């Protein structure tokens, strides 16, 4: 994948040197070989920090909100899921398309950092695909200003079956088993809000969960409040979740958050017809519009 990395650095350098952008957001090498966290480059001389490898996992789209109120034009490297995050933010009028320069990368799917740590560097080749990439339907960016020509081809979109396998597993349980499953998961929830903070669909200026005095959701880390948080957040991103899987990846407690988000996606598909969030700028989310023939069962 060297080819992409070199192009990445070269383009970042050119864009910064020309003054076409004030910042480039990509990835760099972290503390360990299996970590490639987000990198923010403002100096053309600093572009060799940028890397492209199988651990460039983080979805970068959300960071644009941090610079929403600056005049800066920002270049961003986008995999399939990053690009879908951008589409979401554009549809929500969160960012100005003119202020963003998108450099697309055909994504071969990233690898699971946690399993990489367990396997060790000697077995780098055996590290499995990250869970979030297993059922990816759009490895190629859906929106970009230029596309890096890679020597590694993007993987094919994953076959559809399996995408809702976890959901089917939970649906097959009895109500009491389902209750036990979800309460066991959310009893662990620390309410650290990593899932919310990383999510490109979570872009409220003021989040209900940052207003504990409002009385909606208490700050107690206990079952009722944790479940209220879980349900509210899931419903709030309904129809807008781009399935990047970042929420589940960043959860320190390993809560199967995507099994909840995917349930809602599956239901919306059944009720309103197939829809994938963040794929087409012109196609608004089903819950973000009103049609006379919407099914009565909207709630």
């Amino acid at each position: 994948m060297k080819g992409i990395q070199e192009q990445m650095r070269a383009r970042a350098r050119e864009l910064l040197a020309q003054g076409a952008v004030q910042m480039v957001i990509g990835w760099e090498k972290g503390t360990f070989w299996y970590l490639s966290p987000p990198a923010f480059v403002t100096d053309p001389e600093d572009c060799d920090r940028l890397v492209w490898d199988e651990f460039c996992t983080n979805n970068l789209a959300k960071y644009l909100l941090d610079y929403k109120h600056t005049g800066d034009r920002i270049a961003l490297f986008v995999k399939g899921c990053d690009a879908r995050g951008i589409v979401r933010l554009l549809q929500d009028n969160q960012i100005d398309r003119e202020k963003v320069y998108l450099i697309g990368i055909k994504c071969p799917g990233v690898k699971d950092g946690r399993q990489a740590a367990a396997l060790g560097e000697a077995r780098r080749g055996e590290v499995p695909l990250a869970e979030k990439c297993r059922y990816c339907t759009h490895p190629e960016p859906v929106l970009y200003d230029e596309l890096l020509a890679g020597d590694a081809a993007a993987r094919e979109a994953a076959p559809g079956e399996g995408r809702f396998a976890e959901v089917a597993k939970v649906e097959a349980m009895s109500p009491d088993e389902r209750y036990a499953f979800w309460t066991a998961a959310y009893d662990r929830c620390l309410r650290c809000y990593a899932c919310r903070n990383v999510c490109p669909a979570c872009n409220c200026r003021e989040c209900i969960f940052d207003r504990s005095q409002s009385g909606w959701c208490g700050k107690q880390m206990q079952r009722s409040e944790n479940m209220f948080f879980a349900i509210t957040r899931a419903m709030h991103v309904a129809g807008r979740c781009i399935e990047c899987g970042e929420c589940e990846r960043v959860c320190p407690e390993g809560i199967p958050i995507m099994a909840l988000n995917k349930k809602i996606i599956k239901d919306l598909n059944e009720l309103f017809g197939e829809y994938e969030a963040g794929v087409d700028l012109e196609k608004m989310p089903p819950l973000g519009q009103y049609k006379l023939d919407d099914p009565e069962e909207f709630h």
Partner: protein
Amino acid sequence: MLKIIRDKLPELLTAWARGARVLVPRERGGTRVFLPWEGEGELALGQGNTLEPPKDLFFPRTETMYRYQVQGKDASLAEEPAADARQVLVGVRSCDAKSLAIMDDAFLTKGYVDEFYRQRRENTRVIALACTEASPTCFCTAFGIDPGRAEGVDVQMWPVEGGYLLEAVTEAGQELLRQAGDLLAEEGDAQPPAAAVPPLQVDVSGVTEKLQRMFEHPYWTAVSRKCLGCGACTYLCPTCYCFDIQGENQGDSGYKFRCWDSCMFSEYTRMAGGHNPRPSKKERLRNRFLHKLQYFPERYGKFACVGCGRCLDRCPVNVDITRVIREVKEVTL
């Protein structure tokens, strides 16, 4: 020195569980945490640390402080029952043992004793388990912690071939070992195994003094860019002890509770009028590091970090405190 064979350890835990709640690392939902021992099941005493530190056992995520009832113009308060249940905490690593001493400073010294914390702390016996193999994220030795022998514990355990060596450190520890009866055998000349050598090294000398001159440094802008502003680092940190106090009111009655809080959240410093002296993640992240590496050492003479590596292990964007320490020492003022 005394030895117990591995298969007998559950019996020992069961013996301790008579009259106390025994907490020991166990698997839960794919992660390892301190859970009550109820006589059966698997233990997870392998190398490495639990996902969550044991601080929850002394300083619960959420605890009720008192309840109140209003009747007309009168109000009555009801204290919560004392947290006087005995606990035996088994399998604590040297880093987490040290974190208890740091929590003690915050909750028990400088003129105020936090009764909720004190009761649990005094009623808990701590049995340490030495590390013979470090995780990639471990750096306890940077803070002078010996992974092979914990400070401030009642009993020290070492993993050895086929079982564990045990040594009582305090009077209470001796009592616990007496309770074990014939589960323990004398191993006169047994030597504890060599302690683990944490792979991550960082020299913390001088970092406090450097930070004292860095409050306004542009470094904080650069280092905070990638931070998500979530509370994973603080909630998994064995030495983060911030809490919030709030009330839950239902009609004429309600209760006051305290729960963990995180300086990474915007609400943490937001004042009643809406002003926030730490408006962005730059100020919040800076506070987290200054608290650990400057403010706490200034007040208590020790760092509020024990090198357990949990924040580094779980941070979604690889904010690495060892790297921050190194970079802070390198930046020009």
